């Protein structure tokens, strides 16, 4: 009979702790929730990873690319700068892209050409440059509201989330405004919808396959669904995430012909 009062007590304590936790989270400002979710997606130190992109149209695989990505946050802006190397397909192997804010360079080792690109020049089909490289959303967007609601995650489970409404706050932002669902209690990004200025849905992204990576649970897959044509789906799967040095030297045009990571 003693177990019942103990269980009740435990339940009470758990409820109290949960309430306190919720109260603490509720006290978080929308921008803090956004920043916390950035920290779940991106380590706060230089790192390397492999991003495998597969594109599907009407249920059929139509394209695939594999990219090795090396990222480092800029000490001034806080935004990530990335060096991307094509691993596959064979026709693109060893081509490089340097992303440093709006400073974009494409390097082809065959022609030795370093070509400056505008942010509108996409090289990876549906996935925008901002989707592929590491982005700290809190640096480019201002979260306005955080409303609690239940939503389905990428594994079709119901998750209790903050629905963050955020607007672009810098010229570097790729999208005009974004709605993002972030799980209450652990700040896991669950899904996001990206819009144009006129309110047209450009794409929906689901963050899923959470796995322990560099110390915490992080999403290892993003599923991007086209806003106009939901049968157009791009899956980005991340592997080989490692903490590594990304010297400043690498992140400039003149280093591109020299880049050869081990």
């Amino acid at each position, binding site marked *: 009979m003693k177990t019942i009062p103990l269980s009740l007590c435990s339940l009470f304590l758990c409820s109290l702790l949960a309430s306190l936790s919720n109260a603490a989270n509720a006290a978080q400002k929308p921008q803090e929730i956004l920043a916390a979710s950035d920290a779940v997606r991106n380590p706060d130190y230089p790192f390397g990873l492999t991003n*495998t992109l597969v594109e599907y149209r009407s249920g059929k695989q*139509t394209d695939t690319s594999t990219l090795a990505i090396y990222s480092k946050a800029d000490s001034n802006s806080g935004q990530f700068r990335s060096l991307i190397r094509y691993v596959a397909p*064979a026709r693109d*192997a*060893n081509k490089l892209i340097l992303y440093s804010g709006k400073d974009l360079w494409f390097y082809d080792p065959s022609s030795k050409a370093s070509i400056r690109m505008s942010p509108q020049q996409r090289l990876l089909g549906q996935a925008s440059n901002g989707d592929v490289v590491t982005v700290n959303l809190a640096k480019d967007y201002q979260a306005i509201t955080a409303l609690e609601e*239940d939503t389905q995650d990428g*594994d079709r489970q*119901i998750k209790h989330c903050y629905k963050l409404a955020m607007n672009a706050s810098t010229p570097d932002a790729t999208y005009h405004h974004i709605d993002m669902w972030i799980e209450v209690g652990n700040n896991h990004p669950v899904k996001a919808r990206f819009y144009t200025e006129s309110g047209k849905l450009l794409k929906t992204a689901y963050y899923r396959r959470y796995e322990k990576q560099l110390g915490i649970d992080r999403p290892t897959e993003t599923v991007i669904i086209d806003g106009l044509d939901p049968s157009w789906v791009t899956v980005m799967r991340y592997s080989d995430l490692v903490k590594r040095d990304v010297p400043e030297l690498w992140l400039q045009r003149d280093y591109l012909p*020299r880049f050869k990571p081990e």
Partner: protein
Amino acid sequence: MMRPHRTPLLILCMAAVGLLPLQSKAQDDPDISALLVANQMPDVVEKASNWRIFSEAAAGGGVLRSNASTQQSQRLSFDVQYDGTLAQGWRAILSDRLDINWPAQISGQNSINTVKEAYLIWQMQNDILLDAGRINVRNGVATGYNPTDFFRNGALRSIVSADPSSLKENRQGSVMLRAQKLWDGGSVTALFSPKLAEQANNASFSLDIGATNSQNRWLVALSQKMAEGWAPQFLLFKSEQLPTQIGMNLTTLVNDATVAYVEWSGGRSPSLLAQAYQQQGLYFPDTSAFRNRTSVGLTYTTENKISVTTELEYNGGALDQNKWDALQRGPLAIYGQYRNYLQTVQEAPTARAIFVYASWQDALLNHLDLSAMSRFDAVDSSRMSWLEARFHFSHAEFALQWQRNSGNRLSDYGVATKMQSWQLMARYFF
């Protein structure tokens, strides 16, 4: 580890027992289908390779200007590229291409092997690198005409396409020693390319050192980031035959869809016509003067992945309207000598040109890339037009190219032996 995904049946069951709110389900229906599609993704991660190897077969034809007859042509090519680390701090680069043509190209050989690059890199420190061997040094930010591409002289051994990127890729480097020091936001490069042979060698498997290393040359290039998005490059180039030339490259982002660039080089030099004479050991009055060479352009990209580059080109060493007209009216041998020389040094015969290049990624069909190019000689109004449709799979590519040369008989493009030509190509990456 891949997380197991539930089936649509399970979702329906969950919905039926009220686990999924109806409103949410209705809203997310397209998402559910998409997520189920995403579950098909194979759990395979490709690994990087030090090699890139492909072979290419091409067949085509052209209408000859001389008698309007059609000439068929075929080509088989093999291209190998290696970039590997030999030991800590040591890296080797090798790039070679073999083109087998029927009929033979202008050199008279069916087979033309081009050793594009073969060199060693020693990374002395993180920020200091030394290179030695045959290196394809290609400076310049412009697309159609690169006034600072000082090492293109004698670099073309086999021409397989008029596409500027093909001309830049399928060429041989110069033998040189090169050193580079990098720092955050800039670098300085110094190189020396010695004279190693006198004459070009058209033999099929010749290293053809004489084509690229027939004189001593040196170059110093300095890049420095001045402000966010502004990193100009300045160059000094000296060859045995010409006074020191200076150069500059600069790009800027006009807006999210537009990149602007300017590439310039200048210095005292004789006219290209005088250089053509001098190369043959013939007398030509001194025409030395400070001459500018410039490419200014814009690349605009639309939301549906169409990029259009428009470039204005000026070469102060080439001929203006009057001199070009006079040359065309003069002896054909001298005209031919001038054009042959320009082919070697990859310069245009006249001073002004307009270049337009458009490419459309995933045009109309997924994996179909369309490209179009026009080179317009603004002095004699002749024109070269080029179109390409390229369809690619993961390991294979198919391309159809068409080219038309129009203009008066001895004009810049009107003199081409083929009025129009086409070729169908299939490429396979191993």
